[in-house]
């Protein structure tokens, strides 16, 4: 049981444009908490900074400013290699996230060995099989010996989940885990994730641009637009009662079979140029918050938290 507290996370990329250098703020002061058994969904269009947050969280990139703090159930902060053990990730492309040169077993055995979860080949192997069983891959013995390209996309994604959980991760970042899978198996994988989450008390960050699954799979939704959170709140509230223009736009864009023949020529497209990402609607507070305000609040909350070392603090804002 671990919690993650993300405070004013910011990431700037330096872009080189010939001789000029510009900075791109891919993520701008984003704060949220990940709690055990709870799923937070990040939604937003392409390039809104979703994957960047995932990378920051998993320490594949260093934040420009802001903090990500992981604490165990007893409040001990997590550092170093412990961090890697605690926070793991499931990638988008099941074809690219497994190395075609290694067997399925190898993919799971490596983290086990690296984090000293098991010792000795026998124990490791048993543990690998156990992990595979847990993600519904059976017969595990057979699957472990196979190579990724002998598996279907859904099976691969399950291997990826098993790998993420192998070091004993308590926090799972799933970056569009099903968007590359065939429609008919997406639900299976999401349900598997949900089951594991319940069984292992995982904290999950679910990244997607599919509003429908975001709504059903998560507890809280953060809508990201150009690096900033523009709307946040309980899943149903955000989807069924969007406040921010951008969220409305997204909701409108999502196909909904309930609205047969919705796409008509006359349908007016909201003007994206007018969308403002400096304010955020917070459904918990039922109020509009300016980013600067939210950032200050997050900072303050962080300081209090630091004083009370280990005290549970409410999510951002």
């Amino acid at each position, binding site marked *: 049981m671990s919690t993650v507290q993300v405070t004013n996370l910011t990431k700037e990329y330096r872009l080189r444009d010939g001789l000029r250098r510009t900075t791109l703020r891919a993520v701008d002061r984003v704060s949220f908490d990940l709690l055990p058994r709870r799923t937070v969904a990040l939604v937003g269009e392409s390039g809104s900074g979703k994957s960047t947050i995932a990378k920051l969280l*998993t320490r*594949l990139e260093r934040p420009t400013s802001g903090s990500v703090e992981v604490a165990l159930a007893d409040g001990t902060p997590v550092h170093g290699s412990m961090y890697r053990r605690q926070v793991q990730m499931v990638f988008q492309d099941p*074809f690219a*996230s497994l190395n*075609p040169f*290694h067997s399925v077993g190898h993919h799971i055995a490596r983290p086990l060995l*690296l984090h000293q979860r098991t010792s000795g080949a026998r124990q490791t192997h048993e543990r690998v099989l156990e992990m595979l069983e847990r993600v519904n891959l059976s017969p595990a013995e057979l699957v472990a010996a196979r190579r990724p390209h002998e598996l279907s996309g859904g099976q691969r994604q399950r291997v990826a989940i098993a790998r993420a959980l192998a070091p004993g991760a308590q926090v799972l970042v799933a970056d569009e885990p099903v968007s590359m899978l065939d429609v008919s198996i997406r639900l299976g994988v999401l349900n598997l994730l949900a089951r594991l989450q319940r069984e292992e008390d995982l904290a999950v960050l679910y990244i997607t641009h599919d509003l429908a699954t975001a709504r059903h799979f998560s507890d809280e939704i953060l809508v990201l637009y150009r690096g900033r959170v523009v709307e946040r709140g309980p899943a149903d509230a955000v989807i069924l009662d969007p406040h921010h223009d951008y969220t409305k736009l997204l909701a409108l864009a999502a196909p909904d079979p309930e609205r047969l023949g919705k796409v008509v020529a006359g349908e007016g497209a909201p003007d994206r140029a007018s969308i403002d990402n400096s304010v955020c609607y917070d459904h918990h507070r039922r109020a509009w918050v300016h980013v600067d305000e939210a950032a200050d609040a997050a900072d303050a909350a962080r300081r209090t938290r630091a004083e009370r070392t280990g005290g549970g603090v409410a999510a951002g804002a």
Partner: protein
Amino acid sequence: MTDTQSVPAAGAAAARPAPRPGPAPAWRMLLPTMTPWLATGLVLVGGICLFGLLGPLLVGDPDAIRDVGLQGPSGDLWLGTTQTGQDVFAQLAHATRGSLQIGFLVGVLATVLSAFFGIYGAYLGGAADEAFSLLTNVFLVIPGLPLVIVISGFVPRESRGLWTIAVVLALTSWAASARVLRAQTLSVRNREYVAASRLSGERAWRVIVVEILPNLLPVLASQFVFAVIAAVLGEAGLSFLGLGASGSATLGTMLFYAQNGFALPLGAWWWFAPPGLLIALLGTGLSLVNFSIDEIVNPRLKNARLHRRRTRQAARAAKGGAR
């Protein structure tokens, strides 16, 4: 195939598995499919290597002279004699060994260099990558042989041994490979399994060696083969100019002596032609092998090769269907 067309990373297309994954192990992906070209190449290369390895053990003394020079080929002396009555065939065996030796040496050195600058630089990224790739590009545009000649000119003959020449040839020939490797590494590096293994806490060298390197093996193999060809040719050129490694017998020195002894004007083709042909055949063989390796690197090439057979099959089937 997946149902999405999100733009794949450059080169990722190559990594996409076949439509219908068979039960073949992954390492099979690294093996080229057998084609007549590959078979020819392997036979050529294998034959020449065997000749270079075993030949010297079987032939007589290549330096022994006979009273009559420039004898044509005969049952006794398969490729006749040189001007000084030396057995050309025996010399060829020794020279082949020498050339292969230097080719292999340079191949290894150049591959190691290119792997270092190409893979390591690309893996590290940032300033290191920029510096490495700048260096690579600079080495790329500086013409190799003139540089080698200049260096050979400065190195006194006594210290111009096999290794010196090999090192110099390697130094001037790694850049092109490094550039290719860099591009490949960049595409592999961005694949998610590399990120995944970094996430599991793997060390950098292990990520490079275990996760990235296998994907680059075909490229490395291709670059190695290419480096060997270039080295054999380069060494032959240097030796022909009298700037080769001192005291080593290679196909280049053989040609040097043949030229020296007016082999061609005297019609002694058996002395002049075999070394050159052997170089050409070795080069061709290696290139043919390389074609097949290229097909692994770029599967579209393989498709193009299969194209004809399939067109024929389709045409045949169409005819059969029409009847």
